[in-house]
């Protein structure tokens, strides 16, 4: 970033400090706009299309397949349709808050993108407090949802908003505690430092530092699902109980903004899981210094991230929804004590193994073997069950 700015300043012959600041501001503005508009919006849109296609596939139906090849352009059609709809507002709604609430949700998700490292150099801003920053801007989403629910003057909206907010704040505790173990291992809050502390091979990732990190990974993943209100934790939108939750009264583009934020949040969940536990953008060491380094890192990051997003989507169409009491009990009775215990175990392990690099490596390989075994088991059973059905394997996913 800085080198681009400096070269621009030199080539334009700008000497005054105000001019230089202006140029750097413009460069950053352009870069932020590139990340947000042509990357984030299509990502959210394409994910929405993909999700409906996968859902169709999993439930033996078609899903969107008319607009564009395989329905690929469905998300653009949806966006245009949302814009052409009337922007309704209920009679007794609190007008300013009703209008401003979607912006909060949208901005809360958009702001997280600043700190996400796509590769060694492709990051908008490597904040010193990176991971903590991402936790903190999520609070805007909570406040936005709460305001949306209250301002609609609708019982379902209010209950949905309140449920959503209490769910998000409850699960912030296990999320933050599981991130804490990663911070313990890294000694830094910066996202780039967290990635740099890991390596390309699975046993160099944070998830396989010791067996307790696998526990922490699961707690983080499940809590992140709950914070992003994804199934099995989509209580705020529980259609069967609450019509549509906090966004019942919204229509047109404001409704679409909530959903853009939701699918954008999916990206954030995937990216955070990748960065914190799955090695981030780490490419093979052999590539260092070559011109392919940055593209390969970007591709590795996006692949891992997409894999996580795919699992999240698949979970949505596999699992039933939990009840609100179960939700709170899972968080406060199981996750909080379990993550406190795991923190304890991780710190003790760190204190014991300090300076014994062979011991650390052995433990890493051991715990990598554990989670790889589970991954293998899932795949093995999936293949076996598939063979039992005697169905033909059809890999044409988009059919």
């Amino acid at each position, binding site marked *: 970033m800085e080198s681009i700015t400096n070269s621009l300043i030199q080539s334009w012959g700008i000497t005054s400090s105000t001019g230089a600041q202006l140029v750097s501001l413009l460069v950053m503005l352009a870069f932020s706009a590139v990340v947000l508009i042509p990357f984030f919006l299509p990502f959210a849109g394409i994910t929405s299309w993909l999700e409906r296609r996968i859902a169709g596939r999993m439930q033996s139906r078609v899903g969107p397949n008319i607009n564009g090849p395989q329905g690929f352009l469905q998300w653009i059609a949806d966006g245009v349709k949302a814009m052409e709809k009337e922007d309704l507002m209920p009679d007794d709604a609190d007008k300013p808050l009703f209008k401003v609430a979607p912006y909060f949700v949208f901005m809360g998700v958009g702001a997280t993108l600043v700190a996400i490292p796509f590769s060694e150099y492709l990051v908008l801003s490597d904040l010193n*407090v990176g991971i903590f920053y991402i936790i903190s801007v999520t609070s805007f989403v909570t*406040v936005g949802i*709460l*305001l949306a629910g209250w301002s609609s003057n609708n019982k379902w909206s209010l209950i949905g908003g*309140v449920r959503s907010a*209490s769910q998000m704040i409850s699960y912030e505790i296990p999320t933050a505690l599981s991130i804490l173990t990663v911070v313990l291992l890294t000694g830094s*809050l910066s996202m780039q430092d967290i990635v740099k502390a890991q390596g390309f091979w699975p046993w160099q990732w944070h998830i396989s530092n010791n067996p307790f990190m696998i526990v922490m990974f699961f707690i983080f993943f499940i809590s992140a699902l709950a914070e992003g209100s994804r199934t099995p934790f989509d209580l705020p939108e529980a259609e069967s109980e609450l019509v549509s939750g906090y966004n019942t009264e919204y229509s047109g583009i404001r409704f679409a903004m909530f959903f853009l934020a939701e699918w954008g949040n999916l990206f954030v969940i995937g990216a955070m899981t990748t960065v914190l536990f799955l090695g981030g953008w780490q490419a093979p060491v052999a590539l260092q210094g070559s011109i392919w380094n940055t593209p390969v890192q970007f591709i590795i990051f996006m692949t891992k991230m997409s894999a996580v997003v795919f699992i999240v989507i698949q979970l949505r169409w596999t699992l039933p929804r939990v009840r609100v009491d179960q939700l709170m009990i899972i968080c406060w009775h199981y996750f909080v004590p379990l993550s406190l215990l795991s923190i304890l175990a991780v710190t003790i392990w760190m204190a014991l193994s300090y300076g014994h690099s062979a011991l650390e490596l052995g433990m890493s390989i051991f715990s990598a073997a554990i989670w790889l075994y589970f991954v293998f088991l899932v795949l093995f059973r999936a293949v076996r069950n598939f063979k039992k059905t005697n169905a033909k394997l059809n890999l044409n996913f988009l059919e």
Partner: protein
Amino acid sequence: MIVVLLFYFLALITVLGALVTAFSKNIVHSAFGLMASMVGVAGLYGYMSADFLAIVQLIVYVGGIVVLILFAVMFTGDIREVKSSNKTVNLLWATPFIAALIGIIIGAEGKVNFVSKTTKLHNTPTTKMIGDSLLSDYVLPFEVVSVLLLAVLLGAVHVARKYKTDER
């Protein structure tokens, strides 16, 4: 120049938020104004390179306190009635008092010589420094904080239980 403009922008958010909090007759709007004010303060901390503090301000005040206040406010009946929201009272007495206070502050500002005693903290991670001093120089306050939090926890539970038995 731009950075100075940013300061005034953040200060504006803080002050406007505070004004909304104080003058709005709808208490949810007040809570909303409070949030704007908190975000402005967080921005000011960030402006002064206190990055950890800025984030803590966001997490604790926006994510915690404001949500708590919104919960409390939203669950109270008839909240949009002015009589249970914050009424503007004693405007006559308050105005000269506030004017005097502002006069004193402005008068004092010209007389006091503000010297920055800190060294420049340009883009240094403050989290580590805070951690270091919490665990070495300020261990006792650090541990006392946990006792304080425990007291708050017990108090909160106690208050809630009392209301519950009243209901039954």
